[in-house]
């Protein structure tokens, strides 16, 4: 198999492009796709301060690598989830990358800073493990970005992640969520701008990029993820992709071009500051503070009954696999 550009030996085949690439030209293609995503969706300006959510996996480290090479002002934020061994290894990998690239890495640790870990949260709370993990991540990243004066939060969601999320939202006809599945979510009302610069590259490409760049990433899957809905949607998409390469890209990138304008986002209730933490919410207390109180067996107030809307948001957060909570209260 030969490189499309130079006809040298190929190291990776991208079947949806009917192309293969050598290492050098694969790097060019990958970085070009990321730059195109940033430009098309006005993700970040050259002088923006970017906070990158770093898990230690292939996607976040590959994105960190690209953004540093593109000279963006990017700081990593690692969130310790308190998952034995897995979190230790993930933190170690994130630290090693930051040290090698002389990049800034901030760390927030759920057990140390918020008093709970994800395995305990999954057992004690009313949410699934992945749901409370996602809620914790979105809350911490937004709060850390606001408090640190960052302009943008970047995450390593790739094409497979976005296609699987869109599939899930479509299967349930979550039209409001579909309308908001944009690679760039603007800032406003206490929410920092969120961007996904890897949405044009597949999971295979981010893994190959990380490997070929010599990035040591966590290959092991989270031990709590078994049976996760998002994984089942990915498997379904991969089954179709196997015989029809390009389906995932047509589905998600086609949605961005032609589908999104057909869906209208519902008007959102006004936001106010959570009485406990000050972060934006529609009710007295935000979903994170309510979930944390439940996990820790605490009461937030003498009147803890959530509004109907808050309850609906929590239920949505349970069944929607993606980043919907980011804008769920807008």
């Amino acid at each position, binding site marked *: *198999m030969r490189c499309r550009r130079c006809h040298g030996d190929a190291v990776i085949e991208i079947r949806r492009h009917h192309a293969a690439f050598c290492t050098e030209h694969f790097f060019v293609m990958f970085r070009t796709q990321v730059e195109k995503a940033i430009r098309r969706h006005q993700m970040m300006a050259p002088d923006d301060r970017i906070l990158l959510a770093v898990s230690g996996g*292939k996607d976040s480290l590959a994105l960190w690598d690209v953004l540093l090479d593109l000279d963006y002002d990017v700081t990593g934020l690692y969130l310790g989830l308190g998952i034995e061994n897995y979190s230790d290894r993930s933190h170690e990998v994130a630290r090693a990358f930051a040290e090698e690239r002389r990049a800034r890495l901030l760390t927030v640790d759920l057990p140390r800073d918020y008093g709970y870990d994800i395995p305990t949260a999954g057992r004690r709370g009313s949410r699934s493990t992945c749901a409370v*993990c*996602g809620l914790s991540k979105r809350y911490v990243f937004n709060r850390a970005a606001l408090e640190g004066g960052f302009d943008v939060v970047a995450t390593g969601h790739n094409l497979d992640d976005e296609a699987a999320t869109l599939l899930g939202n479509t299967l349930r006809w979550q039209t409001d969520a579909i309308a908001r599945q944009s690679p760039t979510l603007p800032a406003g009302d206490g929410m920092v701008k969120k961007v996904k610069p890897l949405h044009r590259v597949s*999971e295979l490409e981010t893994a190959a990029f990380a490997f070929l760049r010599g990035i040591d990433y966590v*290959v092991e*899957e989270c031990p709590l993820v078994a049976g996760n809905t998002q*994984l089942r949607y990915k498997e379904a998409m991969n089954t179709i992709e196997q015989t029809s390469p390009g389906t995932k890209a047509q589905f998600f990138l086609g949605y961005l071009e032609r589908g999104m304008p057909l869906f209208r986002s519902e008007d959102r209730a006004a936001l106010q500051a959570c009485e406990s933490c000050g972060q934006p919410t529609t009710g007295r207390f935000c979903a994170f503070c309510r979930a944390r109180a439940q996990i820790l067996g605490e009461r937030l107030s003498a009147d803890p009954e959530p509004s109907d809307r808050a309850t609906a948001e929590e239920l949505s957060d349970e069944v929607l696999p993606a980043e919907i909570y980011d804008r769920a209260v807008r």
Partner: protein
Amino acid sequence: MKVKLRNPDREVQLRGGRPVGSVLDELGISVDTVLVIRAGELITREMPVRDEDELEIRPVISGGAP
């Protein structure tokens, strides 16, 4: 040929003398869902493998809370 599979980690012995794609077919693995690594290098599906080779087949799919 020794083949190391990841997540969960395990090893299997398979016949060489054929392309990588044939090995993946035997294992029921889609070529788009894994990296195939030999001697520290990525190899593509049409590359022949030998009985004395050692391969790592590394899944690229990750899930969980975004």
